[in-house]
């Protein structure tokens, strides 16, 4: 045989053997998953921007036109589906709304500051902040921030909208911060590539209720872990459960139980069971029958709460406080074992005290909030103060607590809030019915517009003082 033939056949044999080595089907041969905060899909969700007139009409209809102020900008609604990680570090997909100011006003073009906004508790699996026509929190944030020249990035959290995760990472501080940071990354990448209005380096963080907790956790994580990538300009967490372990202690031992507890507990128990694996060996350890059969996968849901109650998946209690006792959601053994439980340890892990913010912070809430007790806010203020960080904690019931915003603003806000409560009470006929109506509307409807107005003013004053 000639030497070229030997060469050719040896080459072929080597190549044949090499080819079998590459391209296996095991997990070890898989490509790495997309990076955190990578844009999977970015779209303009509105055919035409929402106009100033439409925004003003919307706020007027809700009686919050004066608080929101006249819209300065039209708002383009964008939506980003992005890759992030779940509590086990496995790839997960999530989505975020992105509201972009647009139009001819001075505040509506060029590079705009970004408000990274964390939304409050919802049980609705289809929740999407970008659907401003039916999402009250989305349209509020659009009116208060985007229409005033802020780009808003408002992630929907894992488990909601197009996210495939089969539960939501509720009140898991470190995890929520990861989802917020990745949503911000993806939104910035997308806007820088696709939008004439681009994000500036100014980052404001805000959030309400669960979102107040998420906002504070996000500021803490960014200042600790992402300082080379982002600088927090200011943060305004609102009505959040920052002192989570004390909140749990009060609810579980002495009471009172907060309004909405029968919704918050399954969300928390599932979130912590998925994250830490040690909250219960079986759902029936913590949930009474028949709720133990369904509570673990109850939320987020496409069913209404009325439907869930009808189906026997939640206690039939319109106050959503029936945690304990006969017909309650949770077992006596859960309550009895609470003090030493892994659940309490999880609450401690997710308590947002013991850290010191670097950027300016303004807290806000209402002293009579039946859903997230106000001591969460005052405890956080006291905790930061103990390490030399003074932050205002606005109580809408008290003009004195809002003097930091100026005497006129304090009086206007306190007076406006009192009027709003009075109007709610009167619309329900006053007396006990009126008081109950105020109670029912306090956390979700009455407080948010006032706290967001204060937050926005705070952001604007911090920005004005900076170059």
């Amino acid at each position: 045989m000639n030497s070229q033939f030997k060469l050719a056949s040896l080459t072929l044999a080597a190549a044949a053997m090499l080819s079998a080595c590459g391209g296996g089907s095991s997990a070890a041969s898989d490509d790495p998953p997309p990076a955190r905060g990578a844009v999977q899909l970015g779209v303009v969700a509105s055919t035409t921007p929402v106009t100033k007139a439409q925004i003003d009409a919307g706020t007027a209809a809700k009686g919050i036109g004066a608080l929101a102020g006249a819209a300065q900008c039209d708002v383009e609604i964008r939506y980003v589906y992005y890759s992030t990680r779940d509590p086990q570090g496995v790839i997960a997909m999530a989505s975020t709304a992105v509201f972009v100011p647009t139009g001819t006003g001075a505040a509506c073009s060029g590079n705009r500051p970004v408000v990274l906004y964390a939304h409050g508790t919802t049980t609705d699996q289809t929740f999407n902040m970008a659907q401003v026509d039916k999402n009250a929190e989305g349209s509020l944030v659009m009116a208060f921030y985007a229409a005033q020249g802020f780009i808003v990035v408002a992630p929907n959290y894992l488990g909601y909208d197009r996210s495939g995760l089969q539960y939501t990472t509720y009140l898991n501080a470190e995890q929520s911060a990861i989802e917020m940071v990745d949503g911000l990354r993806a939104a910035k990448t997308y806007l820088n590539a696709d939008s004439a209005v681009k994000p500036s380096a100014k980052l404001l963080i805000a959030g309400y209720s669960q979102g107040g907790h998420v906002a504070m956790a996000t500021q803490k994580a960014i200042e600790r872990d992402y300082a080379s990538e982002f600088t927090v300009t200011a943060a305004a967490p609102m009505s959040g459960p920052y002192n989570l372990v004390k909140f749990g202690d009060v609810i579980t031992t002495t009471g009172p139980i907060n309004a909405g507890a029968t919704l918050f507990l399954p969300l928390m128990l599932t979130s912590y069971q998925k994250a830490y694996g040690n909250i219960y060996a079986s759902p029936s350890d913590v949930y009474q029958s028949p709720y133990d059969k369904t509570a673990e996968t109850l939320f987020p849901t496409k069913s209404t709460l009325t439907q869930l109650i009808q189906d026997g998946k939640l206690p039939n209690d319109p106050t959503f406080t029936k945690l304990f006792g006969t017909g309650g959601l949770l077992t006596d053994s859960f309550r009895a074992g609470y003090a030493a439980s892994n659940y309490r340890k999880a609450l401690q892990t997710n308590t947002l005290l013991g850290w010191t913010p670097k950027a300016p912070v303004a807290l806000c809430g209402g002293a009579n909030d039946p859903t997230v007790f106000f001591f969460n806010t005052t405890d956080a203020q006291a905790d930061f103060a103990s390490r030399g960080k003074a932050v205002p904690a606005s109580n809408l019931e008290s003009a004195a607590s809002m003097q930091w915003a100026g005497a006129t603003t304090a009086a206007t806000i306190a007076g406006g809030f009192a009027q709003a409560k009075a109007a709610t009470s009167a619309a329900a006929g006053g007396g006990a019915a009126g008081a109950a109506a105020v109670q029912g509307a306090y956390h979700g409807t009455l407080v948010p517009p006032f706290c967001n107005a204060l937050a926005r003013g705070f952001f604007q004053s911090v920005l004005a003082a900076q170059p």
Partner: protein
Amino acid sequence: MNKKITLILAASLMALAGAASAETAVGTHTVYLGLAHIDVNSKAAPLEGGTKQFPAPGAQIRVGDATTTGFGYTYRFAPRWSGEIALGIPPSHKIYGNGVIKNAGQIAVVRQMPPTVFINYHLGEYFTKVEPFVGVGVNYTYFEKKRSTPTGDAISGGPTRITLENSWGAAAHVGFTVHYTKQWSLTATAAYADVRSQMRSYTTTNNGTEELHTKINFRPMVYTMSLGYSF
């Protein structure tokens, strides 16, 4: 790596000189071993059926290429005719997101066994060394392993199982053989096979099983180079 292999082999082939010229006698058996590169140019409709609606052009998939070791057997049953069965070590193809999920990267992997039988017509010796041929035949593609990646699971919303229908289709190839000696030869081919499959994915969610499906037309071009031993 694939391009380098092809170049090395092509260079080796072109460096030939003084190979023996020989026609294959009737009744000759040939076994061969070599390299096969599968260039997939898949076409598939957007995934349908789930609860998550994606905007236009929809969530799509794209099948990646694969390279593997091919081997087979040929029997010369007439002066100009042979029958052939082409086999190989099952190649693995990465499946990637496409359309609106293009940035997702690899969402699945499939391993397939594509045995193919050919009837070949040999065009005699047009050169002193090289014997071209054409062949038509039938391909059966059996998808023996299918797996969704963590990224695929993240998009579909839970642990995902994939099924692919096996495929029967026509195949055709052109090629040439270089005879070095009575026993040893080198053969190169370019083949096309009609491979189509209905792909279904089943995702376990809290609300039961979600099914997505699409029809994939693989449209593979297969390039082979093999060392043959005849007896």
